[in-house]
């Protein structure tokens, strides 16, 4: 045995109008085989109408240890939400 087949991340669009969503991963030697294997493993019951595969090593992920710097600044900006603004009750359709 030489070496392991590369890992691919699999994204499936369950029906048109919806985003592709990450469902798991698969091993395959190339992109075509990755799509075929993803079809067999993740869409046996019509779970998809479209498949994306991406080599796992090509994905850059944010580091959970930096979650504070990345995501906390949004926490105190409640003025970005519509409910921050105080308007009279009789105002409708806004």
């Amino acid at each position, binding site marked *: 045995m030489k070496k*392991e087949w590369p*890992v691919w991340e699999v994204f499936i669009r369950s029906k048109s109008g919806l985003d592709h969503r990450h469902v*798991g991963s698969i*091993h395959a030697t*190339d992109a075509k085989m990755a799509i075929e294997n993803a079809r067999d493993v993740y869409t046996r019951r019509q779970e998809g109408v479209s498949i994306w595969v991406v080599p796992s090593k090509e994905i850059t992920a944010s580091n*959970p240890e930096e979650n504070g710097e990345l995501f906390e600044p949004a926490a105190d900006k409640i003025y970005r939400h519509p409910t921050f603004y105080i308007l009279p009750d009789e105002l409708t359709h806004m």
Partner: protein
Amino acid sequence: MYLNNDPLEADFQAKIDKGQNIEAKDWMPEKYRKTHIRQISQHAHSEIVGMLPEGNWITRAPSLRRKVALLAKVQDEAGHGLYLYSAAETLGITRDELYDQLHSGKAKYSSIFNYPAVTWADMGAVGWLVDGAAIMNQVMLTRTSYGPYARAMVRICKEESFHQRQGYEIMLTLCNGTEVQKRMAQDALNRWWWPSLMMFGPRDAESPHTEQALKWKIKLKTNDELRQQFVDQTVSQAEILGITIPDPKLKWNEARGHYDFGDIDWEEFTQVVAGNGPCNRERLEARKSAWEKGAWVRDAALAYAEKQEQRSLKVAV
């Protein structure tokens, strides 16, 4: 309340206590990681080895309807094994290492698959009881703390329900058939009942990891709780079939609100786990042989892909 001096570990525990999931890149105690690798891979191996007793009956299924159902079930099990292997790989172990652990005997798989499937009724009993017991465990695991494992479980649970129903339908057909067919169903229940109860693992008193596993929400119910739940729900199912669960001590206990049941032969369980069950050697040999005989295919596919890539690079230059 659990006290912990390590701030990272205290944070980790607080997240779990709040019902948050742990994801692959999050900090986790080494023991949490190791326990999960062990448990998820054991689960994956069980799906893969679980194909063997049933694969044996595909060519001998009594009708086309039964054959397509069994084929689909076995294919699902391959799929479930793959979902689980990919969940285990998020914890930093490779697929080859996982297979090595199975083939070398270092990793275990569910002891139930070391029993032979000798008649067609066994396909019914396995679906009804073995998948039934597995579902009980798996439904609990959809709420387990490790995200990739929990998500794999959600997908698996959606698919398992057909497995149990097709098994029960096989039993029902046999039980409504001739005397000989009904005896065949009873015989299968007799042989699969106790091993199915053993699937939930040792008694709580003898299960040293239970406390830690509950604290980390690796499991949410103990072995004994799940076993009791299984017995309680299965009794009426056997009554509908009109066959008898092979346990003279099985009796409704009004005070407990549960069925009492007889003693499990734990010596048999220990023996099967230790590798001395009726089919341990055969199962492992079948796995190893498939893996070794497939090596040239894996290598050839990889060599082909590499060659294609080299060619496309040359064209680009």
